[in-house]
């Protein structure tokens, strides 16, 4: 017993931080098994041709201010876990949704998170019964830049 107590204490001391329920970053959700990830950083964005228009909508204003794009997609089991963990992250960010739309079982919520310079985030969180998709744009854009994506 004398030997077991210090052993347990040592194990608890050194391993407890590993199990601590800390709030994850969105990018950490890519570790979920079965989730497909696309991460495009600034260097790669600089290499691609400029996207001035998408379906006739002017994207010039927004695309020039992008720092990174993260796309996560999960189906079935991965979708459930991805959805759950994303809800937790959004709760911790304490942001109000910009827009919520529900259509034929597909719920879409959009968020704008203001950070330090060049660290603003636009999050699109789309949930279907068996699929979850998340798109995170990071950059120095403003909500006005995002609004340019809406058909006038």
């Amino acid at each position, binding site marked *: 017993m004398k030997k077991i107590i210090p052993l347990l204490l040592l194990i608890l001391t050194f391993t407890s931080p590993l199990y601590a329920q800390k709030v994850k970053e969105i990018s950490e959700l*890519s570790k979920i098994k079965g989730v497909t990830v696309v991460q495009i950083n600034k260097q790669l964005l600089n290499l691609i041709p400029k*996207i001035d228009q998408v379906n006739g909508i002017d994207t010039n204003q927004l695309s020039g201010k992008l720092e990174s794009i993260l796309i996560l997609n999960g189906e079935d089991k991965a979708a459930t876990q991805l959805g759950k963990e994303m809800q937790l992250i959004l709760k911790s960010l304490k942001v109000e949704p910009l827009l919520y739309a529900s259509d034929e079982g597909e719920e879409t919520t959009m968020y704008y998170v203001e950070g330090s310079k060049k660290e603003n985030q636009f999050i699109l969180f789309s949930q279907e019964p068996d699929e979850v998709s998340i798109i995170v744009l990071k950059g120095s854009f403003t909500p006005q830049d995002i609004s340019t994506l809406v*058909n006038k």
Partner: protein
Amino acid sequence: MDQKKLDHLLTRFYQGESSLEEEALLESYFSGDVPKAYQKDKQLFLALSSTYPEELDERLERFMKKEVAKQRNKKTFFLKSLIPYAAAVIIMAFGIHFYREQTKAPQQELTVEEAYNHTYQALQTISCKLNKGNKEIALAMNKQTDAVQRVLNKVNLKK
């Protein structure tokens, strides 16, 4: 020695202010007969002047060395006993780290073309959803305006 001088010397002695000569004086005085009132002082001076065994220093030194060695052994034993536990914890930490690294999703490097397509699709999806949401908002607002208009018409008819 008269009582006044004796009291003065004793006071200095107890206050720690007496010189060696004064202490010797007191010691020689208390080695003889003293009045009853000074019996306790006498006992103290006799105890102080009594010689201790010659080997006491040596024995004390040996005892202290033994105690120091015991304490050292205890510390080393404690540290040594921790080694297997520390090793177990390190192995566990490595195991957990290794497991986490293995469960990480494999990341593929994107080509410029793929990056372009994904960026385009992301912007397209966002634009599409925004427009869809916008249409729904417009639709809901129209419906509400119609409903309000109907209520107003009814109120006007009643008038």
